[in-house]
């Protein structure tokens, strides 16, 4: 902010420079995501080390049903594109269409979590719970952490839908929705690692 005291006759009310980022929310959120990425890297490393220790118990070939994983993957991918459609409606400032696509995204996310929980329940029912072997402990920790992230993402999504419904597409709400967009797409990126490293490579092992 330049204060021109000498030439008081010509006050100028515009910025001569580029906008500085007024608040580093998007950058700060990105750095949070990167730290989350490190959490997942540690969990992936743990799975990589322990993933072959079955303790004479069931292995990936006995437990994983790749067709279920394929359906799960498509749920998450579809939720990514529908969140993208929500972001496009935000740009057009259309509140109802935004809420519609957010709801669709939430449904796909809920379908993903439900399928995953069903898979977990099935495995635990068969006696392949997290306490069975190091492989299963690391599997449940890694995949469970991802599922927990998606669950919290859905909770956040519902909160923002209420916010948008009440206060409309204000600047603050758009910023929040942009953060959730990063979070949601980031979880899809982590899932690429999960289905490749855990499921596909597990069955190949």
């Amino acid at each position, binding site marked *: 902010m330049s204060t021109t005291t000498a030439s008081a006759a010509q*006050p100028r*009310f*515009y*910025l001569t420079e*580029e*906008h500085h*980022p*007024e608040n*580093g*929310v*998007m*950058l700060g959120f*990105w*750095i949070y995501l*990167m730290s989350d*990425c*490190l959490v997942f*890297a*540690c969990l*992936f*490393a*743990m799975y*990589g*080390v322990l993933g072959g220790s079955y*303790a*004479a118990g069931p292995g990936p070939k006995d437990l994983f049903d*790749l*067709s279920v*994983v*394929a359906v799960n*993957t*498509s749920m998450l*991918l579809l939720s*990514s*594109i529908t969140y*993208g*459609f929500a*972001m*496009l409606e935000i*740009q057009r400032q259309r509140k109802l269409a935004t809420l519609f696509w957010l709801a669709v995204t939430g449904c796909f996310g809920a379908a993903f979590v439900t399928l995953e929980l069903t898979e977990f329940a099935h495995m635990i029912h068969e006696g392949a719970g997290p306490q069975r072997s190091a492989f299963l402990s690391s599997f449940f920790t890694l995949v469970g952490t991802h599922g927990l992230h998606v669950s919290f993402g859905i909770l956040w999504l519902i909160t923002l839908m209420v916010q948008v419904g009440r206060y409309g597409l*204000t*600047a603050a709400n*758009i*910023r929040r929705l*942009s953060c959730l967009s*990063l979070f949601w*797409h*980031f979880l*899809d*990126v982590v899932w*690429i*690692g999960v*289905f*490749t*490293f855990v499921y*596909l*490579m597990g*069955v*190949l*092992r």
Partner: protein
Amino acid sequence: MSEPHVHGGAGGAHDQDARFDARHVHGHAHDPNIPHATFRGYMIGFLLSVVLTAIPFWLVMGKVFHNPQATTWIVLAFAVVQILVHMAYFLHLNTSSEGGWNMLALIFTIVLVVITLSGSLWVMYHMNANMMPMSAQDMRNMP
């Protein structure tokens, strides 16, 4: 944006708060922090992701190659490409967003991820190989 940004009626009487609010209202229409997304970009990303997901699943489920080692490397390569596609088309990452700080944080994270993963796998694999061998029979009799 070479055009100077005119502040709507921010007179001298305005206090700091009012000016802050005015900038906020002004900023949200084309906030530089929120990337401009297009339908085309999302669809390209989505279709590429579908193809890059379907091929590895098909390779593994259809047992296309007899050599699992080769399939593993191909599947990993597809995953890397798909992650790059997601970064570009869904996360709208480029070298200029946030003045390059996004990309810098990402590169730093990738370095740490590679060290964590390759280091853990390398060290623990060799530790495992140097440990006493244990058969499945011994495992069953573990306390």
